[in-house]
């Protein structure tokens, strides 16, 4: 190749080397990309309106997530000419905290998100990850008097923000038993008279449990698993009903009435070993109930749509009173938080979007999940008829009056959560369910750690 008409090998190497080095340096250089994807004032020609895209993080990936998508699509349709759009990004629940902290630390947080269940965000409130919302809510005339008092209470962290709200409540959830109506019919039980107390619950469970020839449970009357969420949330509810408290009301003393907590552990163990109405051999509780391998399954409203689509013949009823103290059940609140931005000018559009979503949460709290915290929505005449049939949805609405076992609003709230498969409480109690640790030892371990957590505030 002549020098006049082409490139020599040396020149080619030089150019290629420089190009490669340049490309590498550009790739390694500072990025304008957002941690949550691009979040920007999107393109517009002169005279066109600038569109603000709000990034919304959500861990909802089950059938409730599909309804959430429709809810956001409604917002986007209503705001197409108003210069604001929401983009939902799915973030797995177990990674939500770490990803959010990383995004905030790098100044690239999403504008808003469903975040962690209310009560678990004390750390966010203390460290300025979430934005206090009282003033912002006032700016957009969000009618806080329309919210139930308990929902607003669960959006506050008295230790770290006084009276400030750190999320706008969107839905209230409880754990209630779902029951397979085919099994009820098979067992000849009266479908108009569901169990109300411990005795009738066990009676129904025994009638519906099936065994193999060796006496092993092959269909659980009460759906349980050997470890993780199901036995632990069961203990959390039953122990509370028996008078145990994870923390005193003033958040100073851990494990109030430990004897009741131990009795509740024994009650859970008896389901497997004494009454033989539950099997430890269930791999996936959701699938197993859907496949008819369990008859009574206490779970949340997020399962309703999935089982209906699957054609499962089931109904729900109020969680029975197993303990002698009360009939309380698990409570969880979904709320939308706002996250700290370097450009605080985005707050106005974000709180306006959250207000719209709250005002228009009828779809979310009828077809999506849970019950609305807005009195005006619950009192609508069509609230009972919208969404899934009342026989599967009703207990989740009517049972809210008993839904009182929520989070402990301290920094180490995670350690106290009863609805989880992976925290300190679960690690401590799982060995009890498989017979490797005594209830007494487990209670001592819970007390030691929880007291330390409470002392740290």
């Amino acid at each position, binding site marked *: 190749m002549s020098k006049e008409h082409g490139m020599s090998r040396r020149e080619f190497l030089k150019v290629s080397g420089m190009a490669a080095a340049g490309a590498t340096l550009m790739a390694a250089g500072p990025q304008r990309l957002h941690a949550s994807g691009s979040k920007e004032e999107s393109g517009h020609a002169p005279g066109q309106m600038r569109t603000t895209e709000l990034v919304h993080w959500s861990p909802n990936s089950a059938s409730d997530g599909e309804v959430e998508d429709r809810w956001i699509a409604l917002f986007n349709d209503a705001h197409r000419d108003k210069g604001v759009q929401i983009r939902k990004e799915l973030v797995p629940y177990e990674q939500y905290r770490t990803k959010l902290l990383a995004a905030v630390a790098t100044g690239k947080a999403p504008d808003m998100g469903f975040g962690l269940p209310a009560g678990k965000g004390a750390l966010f409130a203390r460290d300025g990850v979430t934005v206090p919302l009282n003033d912002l809510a006032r700016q957009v005339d969000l009618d806080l008097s329309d919210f139930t008092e308990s929902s607003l209470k669960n959006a506050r962290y008295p230790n770290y923000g006084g009276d400030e709200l750190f999320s706008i409540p969107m839905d209230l959830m409880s754990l209630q038993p779902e029951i397979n109506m085919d099994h009820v019919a098979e067992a000849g039980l009266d479908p108009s008279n569901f169990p109300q107390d411990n005795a009738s619950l066990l009676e129904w469970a025994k009638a519906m449990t099936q065994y193999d020839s060796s006496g092993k449970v092959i269909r659980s009357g009460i759906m349980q698993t*050997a470890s993780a969420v199901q036995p632990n949330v069961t203990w959390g509810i039953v122990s509370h009903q028996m008078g145990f408290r994870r923390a005193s009301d003033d958040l100073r003393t851990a494990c109030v009435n430990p004897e009741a907590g131990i009795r509740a552990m024994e009650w859970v163990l008896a389901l497997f070993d004494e009454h033989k109405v539950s099997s430890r051999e269930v791999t996936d509780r959701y699938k197993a109930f859907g496949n008819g391998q369990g008859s009574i399954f206490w779970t949340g409203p997020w399962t309703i749509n999935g089982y209906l689509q699957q054609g499962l013949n089931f109904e729900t009823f109020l969680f029975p009173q197993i303990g002698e103290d009360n009939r309380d059940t698990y409570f969880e609140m979904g709320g939308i938080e706002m996250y700290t931005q370097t450009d605080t000018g985005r707050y106005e559009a974000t709180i306006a979007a959250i207000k719209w979503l709250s005002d228009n949460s009828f779809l979310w709290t009828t077809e999506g999940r849970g019950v609305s915290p807005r009195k005006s929505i619950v009192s609508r005449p069509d609230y009972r008829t919208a969404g899934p049939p009342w026989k599967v949805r009703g207990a989740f609405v009517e049972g809210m009056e008993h839904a009182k076992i929520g989070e402990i609003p301290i920094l180490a709230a995670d350690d106290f959560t009863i609805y989880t498969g992976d925290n300190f409480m679960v690690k401590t109690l799982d060995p009890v369910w498989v017979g490797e640790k005594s209830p007494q030892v487990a209670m001592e371990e819970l007390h030691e750690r929880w007291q330390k957590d409470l002392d740290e505030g």
Partner: protein
Amino acid sequence: MVESLRTRMRAVRWKGKRVHWSAYAFLLPFLVPFLIIIVAAAVFGVYVAFTDWGIIAKPIWVGFQNFAEAMGDQYVAKAFRNTVHYGLVIVPGIAVLGLMFAMYVNQGWPLSGFSRAMFFAPNVVSATVIGLIWVWILDTQYGIINNYLGFFGIPSVPWITSTSWALYGVSMASIWWDLGLGFVLFLAGLQEIPRELYESAQIAGANGVQQAFRITIPLLRPTISMVVTLQFIATFRIFSQVLVMTDGGPASSSMSVIHYVYTEGIVIGRLGYASAVSFLLFLMILAVTVVQRFLIRERHS
């Protein structure tokens, strides 16, 4: 000035030889990301292990506190015990089965070409998919394996729902998934052994077992060493299968070190503590690798 710089750069010598700058330029596309993503991250990880860090604030130097806590943490001890246990089940499983399959394919018997593809196929599927499939296969109540065992009157085995079996259930899935690499390496090793050695041994009257122990296995020693080393390292990092199949349960009976690190670091957000546990795992992998390389060392003589 540019010409002067060029001249000076051309004049640079390293140990008497001219430095070829263009070669370094070609290395840059790999070197820069490698330094940033691997080396810098590893160094930062070691630093974080000596701090209390929750992402949002600056790391607080705590010295050896995380390591001291890890040494007294019963779940760290359990995770390490389980991880070693995984190694002792999975690595021999892959080595023995991989060698057997490789010997079968190496014979060139009918269907060996098809078998070669089949034995390797699971290796191209992601660990998550393998985990999801094996959860169904191993289900105690309606899994296919227990169904077949039932034909022989064997009672159902709680493969992933009992503290005694969960680790073995996960190990079975891991062996099935990871067998392909060992198989391919053994096959390559077998094909390197000259046929004449077997012919000479036959003439000398050696039977099949003698040929295996006097020819095949000694000449495969470097391959065995490599397979065992690679599999130990891979098994000590076991995570996806555990997360998908058992989430470490029941009662932490199948929890691996990486699963524990994930829980502490990503789920709970204790990055300093998780880094300290990771560093302990690194030390364990290093120690085991050195020891087993010594035990199955290559003998060039």
